[in-house]
Structures are given as structure tokens and as C-alpha cells.
């Protein structure tokens, strides 16, 4: 019997979690060596968050 799972996340939490997981995968796939991967992961995560929040602010005037 599989128990139903449920998560309650805010918009920002969901976006951050998405950015975190995708950045980890990108780091592993596109770079070799731990240092290069960590650098790429941080860079990708920051860009995801920055662009996500930026687009959110840009769409604010059209939200209502």
C-alpha cells in the first residue's frame, strides 16, 4: 500500500528547489572534477534565481 505524499511549497520555495536540482544535474553532466562542478553549480543556481526573480518583477505590472 503506497501512502499518498504531499508537499506544500510557496512559489519561491518551489522555484528554489527546482533551480537547486537542475543546477546539480547540470554541474554533474557538463563539468569534470569536483571544483569545476561546484563552481558551475553555484553559477547556474544564482542565474536561475536571479532570472526567475527578475522575470517575476518584470511581469508584476501585468499581474492584475
Amino acid at each position, binding site marked *: 500500500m503506497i501512502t499518498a*505524499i504531499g508537499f506544500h511549497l510557496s512559489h519561491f520555495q518551489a522555484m528554489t528547489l527546482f533551480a537547486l536540482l537542475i543546477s546539480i*544535474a547540470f554541474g554533474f*553532466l557538463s563539468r569534470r572534477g569536483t571544483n569545476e562542478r561546484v563552481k558551475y553549480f553555484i553559477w547556474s543556481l544564482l542565474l536561475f534565481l536571479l532570472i526567475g526573480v527578475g522575470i517575476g518583477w518584470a511581469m508584476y505590472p501585468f499581474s492584475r
Partner: protein
Amino acid sequence: MSDETTADAAAVATTPKHSATTPESAATTPAHPQRSEALAFAIGVAGWLVPGLGHALQKMWGRAIGCFLTVGALVFLGVGMRGNLFSSEGGDAFGTLGYVADLGTGSFYFAAKALETKGSDVAHAEGDYGTRFLAAAGVLNLLAALHAYEAARGRKA
């Protein structure tokens, strides 16, 4: 956890050892190109069916674990947020596209079907995010499978 040299090792493994040509030319023109191409294709399919398996077969352990965990986490979270898992009876073009993206997770698609006992709820933002998580997991796994295929062909990965 470092697997820096394994891609090159995989390239060497697909190169025949009894070739009379120089190592450089042997790397580009293997004696059994169809066999190594079929092997690379099988590795790509394995990577699609089980996320990370394509890399694990080439002893790229870091990438294998990374793919398995990230794709697995995206699917688990997507189902937990009650995202829409598309089926083959999608109807419109977006439904078909969503089905193809979801099917990209390979065997995890069926695991997600089993986990999704309550069904989807896209009336709320969470469910909408969950749908994106599931689709992104599929596309990411397809990317990883393609990466494993290219590495098996001897391309620098």
C-alpha cells in the same frame, strides 16, 4: 566520486586493440563501427529506462548517482505537489508533448503513476509547479541519456 577519466576510458574500450592503424586513426575509425554504435545506442536506451544507468555502465559513478538522484527527486516532488502526469490519451498537442516529456523519465514514469494515488490538482499553483517538475525530470533524463550515448560513442564528455 570523481569520474574525470572514465569518458576517455569508455572511448578506449570501444576502440579495437588489434588494429594496425595508429591510435589517433583508430579512435576515429574503429574496426567494428556498427557494433560500437549499437552498444552506444543500448547504453543510451539503458540511461533513458533507468536514470543514471547509462553512465553507471561506463563507470561514470558521479554522473550516474547525480542523474539518478536529481531525476528521482524531481519526480518525487512533482508527484508530491500533485502535478499532472500526462497519459497517452492526451488529446491535444500540448497533452502529447507533456506525455513525451513525462515519458522521458523512463521507468520512473510508472513509479510516479503508482505514487500518484490522489490524482493531479492543477487548480492550485503547487500542482502547476508539480507538472513542471515532472516534465523537467523527463527532459533532464533525456539529456542525460543523450550524454551517456555520446560518451559511449567516444565523444569527449
